């Protein structure tokens, strides 16, 4: 061996120690490092600190359910035939024997009844998809309400948003693959939406389906989109998302010792590796139990798709439910001119659909513009300390939920013994009114909570002890908060409303103020003016109250 004569560039091996004596693990590490240069990479990242909070694990739920979907999806591709050739079914599900169906549907039946573990894997795949989307929704809301989207994380917010939207469409294409009566109705719905596009709708539809709906192509096309195109993009985005999380470092809630320049928590190795690894198995196990217990998308009960059949209760999976709601509550308006029809009843919902999504996506940029804040933010806001943002978020969720109600209006009707027409009208009104109400109510609640925080800081916590003073008065003893608690409650910073400044200079010359500037000043006042926030207690106020002039 000539190792002693070769200098070790990585410096991993201790000098004077011969290679033969090094443990196997070290040897492997050394070998790998010499070729991959992982040492410096690992050194920089192994001790990466992550803060501890359950809500920071929502993103992990997304990641793990995504991995579960990929793993189970690979298994499903081994048995699924993405073909619309019509065949007669002779498998083991009796109520469909002898029926004509597409190969896609028949192979999904085979996966469910004749492939070992097929049904369980199918159900894990589908449940994980529902959980994935739901977890992304909640994760996104966590980021939104805590203001974690602020600089430098705007791009990562957009990556996350794109993942959510792509997840919706990956889910939709996957849901359509079995070619069952329910999903076929969903594809028909999509075709209707495409057809509603003025002028080019028909061409688009023919392009998408390779001719007249349903044709013989869409399952194969959706298949490659579902298993290759969209998951490929998503995987790339997930990696980019995670790299940015590493690069930006994780945000944390305010607290003693936590500043904008540090991260307080546990290192990636060994603590978070163990925790995250364990959590992966918990998520996998949990979803597997869910899939073993509860049925999802029982295509055998739905039957094969035929364009002449339809069932009531035909809804998409929940993440597409709001688009269903938009269509269901929209009046069936249409305009006819020169033999052409503009189906406004479908086209308007089709236009509102992206607007609903974009509204939440662009919010960070609107807020950044209003505040004009160029600094980095690594300390999270408590939702109450950003009442306008919180109000907007709740209004958006309210709109989303109202549309979900609209999408499930038939089930609301049957289960609560209501008229479906009344529900539809309720949704039409609530679409406009409920978000506004939600905004106002949320903002008031936030301001109330801010007042309570201020009260707690200045006067302490209500101890529940009632004291009778010598002259007969009863008072409740307030216990002063600890230094840490007071710091946490007052750590947030408050913006001042942006002002345009005098529009006339000292010479009496009027300065032109542009529209956007005026708008920004107005918005800023709404955000941070008197009605937008409660001024947090200052040290002077605190000193004055606690300086011993009796009680307040």
């Amino acid at each position, binding site marked *: 061996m000539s190792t002693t004569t070769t200098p070790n560039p990585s410096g991993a091996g201790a000098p004077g120690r011969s290679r033969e004596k090094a443990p196997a693990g070290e040897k492997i590490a050394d070998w790998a490092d010499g070729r991959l240069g992982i040492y410096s990479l690992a050194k920089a990242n192994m001790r990466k600190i992550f803060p501890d909070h359950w809500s920071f694990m929502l993103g992990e739920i997304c990641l793990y359910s995504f991995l579960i979907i990929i793993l189970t999806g690979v298994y499903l591709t081994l048995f699924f035939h993405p073909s619309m050739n019509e065949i007669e079914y002779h498998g083991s599900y*009796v109520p469909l024997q002898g029926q004509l169906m597409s190969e896609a549907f028949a192979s999904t039946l085979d996966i469910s009844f004749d492939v070992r573990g097929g049904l369980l894997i199918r159900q894990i795949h589908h449940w994980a998809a529902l959980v994935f989307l739901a977890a992304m929704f909640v994760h996104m809301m966590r980021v939104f309400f805590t203001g974690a989207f602020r600089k430098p994380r705007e791009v990562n917010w957009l990556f996350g948003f794109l993942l959510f939207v792509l997840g919706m469409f990956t889910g939709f294409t996957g849901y359509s693959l079995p070619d069952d009566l329910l999903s076929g109705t969903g594809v028909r719905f999509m075709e209707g939406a495409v057809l509603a596009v003025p002028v080019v709708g028909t061409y688009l539809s023919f392009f998408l389906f390779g001719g007249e709906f349903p044709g013989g192509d869409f399952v194969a096309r959706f298949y490659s989109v579902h298993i290759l195109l969209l998951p490929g993009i998503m995987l790339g985005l997930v990696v980019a998302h995670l790299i940015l999380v590493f690069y930006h470092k994780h945000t944390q809630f305010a607290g003693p010792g936590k500043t904008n320049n540090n991260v307080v928590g546990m290192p990636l190795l060994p603590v978070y590796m163990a925790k995250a690894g364990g959590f992966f198995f918990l998520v996998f196990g949990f979803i597997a139990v*869910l899939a073993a217990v509860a049925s999802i998308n029982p295509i055998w009960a739905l039957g094969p798709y035929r364009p002449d059949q339809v069932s009531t209760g035909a809804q998409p999976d929940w993440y597409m439910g709001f688009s269903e709601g938009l269509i269901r509550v929209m009046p069936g308006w249409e305009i006819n001119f020169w033999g052409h029809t503009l189906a406004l009843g479908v086209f308007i919902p089709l236009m509102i659909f992206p607007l609903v999504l974009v509204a939440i996506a662009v919010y960070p940029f609107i807020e950044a513009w209003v505040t004009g804040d160029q600094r980095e933010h690594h300390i999270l806001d408590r939702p109450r300390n950003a009442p306008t943002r919180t109000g907007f978020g709740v209004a958006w969720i309210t709109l989303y939920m109202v549309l979900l109600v609209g999408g499930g209006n038939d089930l609301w009707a049957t289960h609560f013994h209501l008229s479906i027409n009344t529900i539809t009208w309720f949704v039409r009104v609530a679409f406009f009114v409920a978000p506004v109400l939600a905004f106002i109510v949320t903002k008031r609640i936030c301001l109330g909570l801010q007042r309570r925080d201020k009260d707690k800081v200045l006067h302490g916590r209500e101890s529940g002890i009632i004291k009778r003073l010598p002259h007969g008065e009863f008072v409740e003893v307030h216990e002063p908060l600890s230094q840490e608690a007071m710091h946490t409650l007052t750590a947030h910073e408050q913006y001042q409303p942006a002002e345009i400044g005098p529009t006339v200079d000292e010479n009496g010359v009027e300065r032109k103020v542009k529209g956007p500037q005026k708008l920004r000043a107005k918005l800023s006042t709404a955000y941070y003016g008197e009605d937008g926030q409660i001024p947090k207690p200052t040290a002077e106020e605190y000193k004055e109250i606690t300086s011993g002039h009796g009680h307040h």
Partner: protein
Amino acid sequence: MKKLSARRRHPLAAVVVLLLALAATGGLYTAFAPADKAQADTSAQSLAIDEGKKLYAVGCASCHGTGGEGSTDGPSLVGVGAAAVDFQVGTGRMPAQQPGAQVPKKKVIYSQAEIDQLAAFVASLGAGPNVPTEEQYNPEGADIAEGGELFRTNCAQCHNFTGKGGALTNGKFAPTLEDVDPKHLYEAMQTGPQNMPSFPDTTLTEKNKKDIIAYLDAVNSDDSESPGGLELGGLGPVSEGLFGWIFGLGGLIAVAVWVAARTAKAKKS
């Protein structure tokens, strides 16, 4: 032919033609008229009609009129047939409790004997479909797969894929078909109660009806299996989404809270 044409101006020719025409019409009628609609008035039958009339006067006449002619509160019962009575009263829908969008199923208050008497009376008002015999509705040996296809083509629009029910306009609804008696399924198809269209034998043959009943028996009864586990109401993606959010994500968040609460020991010591 010559003989016949020579006598065509005979004074009795018109009478002969008339007689022949009458005989042909009558013969065709007896040959093609649905035999079950013509009720033979035996003495047992007329007794049942009398009893039924008494029951009718107490339980039904206030809305349907004393002679079944109908009123503003209830439709005419002339020609609805015994099957309609057996269905409506046999499932407890009639007598109705209160006016509303739709009369729901409730506790049956008449015995089967009384229902038969009521049915006999209503059938006597005008010909209509008879109560089916067991061999007509018994799903034994019927084609389940064929029934499924027929069900998806004709019934699923309102009753959902496997007959879990669905909403109609203005508070009306298509009820769940879970554990509905095969006889009542048959009668409902035959007579089209409330908002349901009727499917007479010319539309859905007796065999078709049997197939549908067999399909429902296979997919939506106490004995039907759910290979995937809990059915979640069999209502499709809405209940699945709700379950996924509450138990799926809800459970995982609970797990996340549990994991996060277990911080590394180094912090505590």
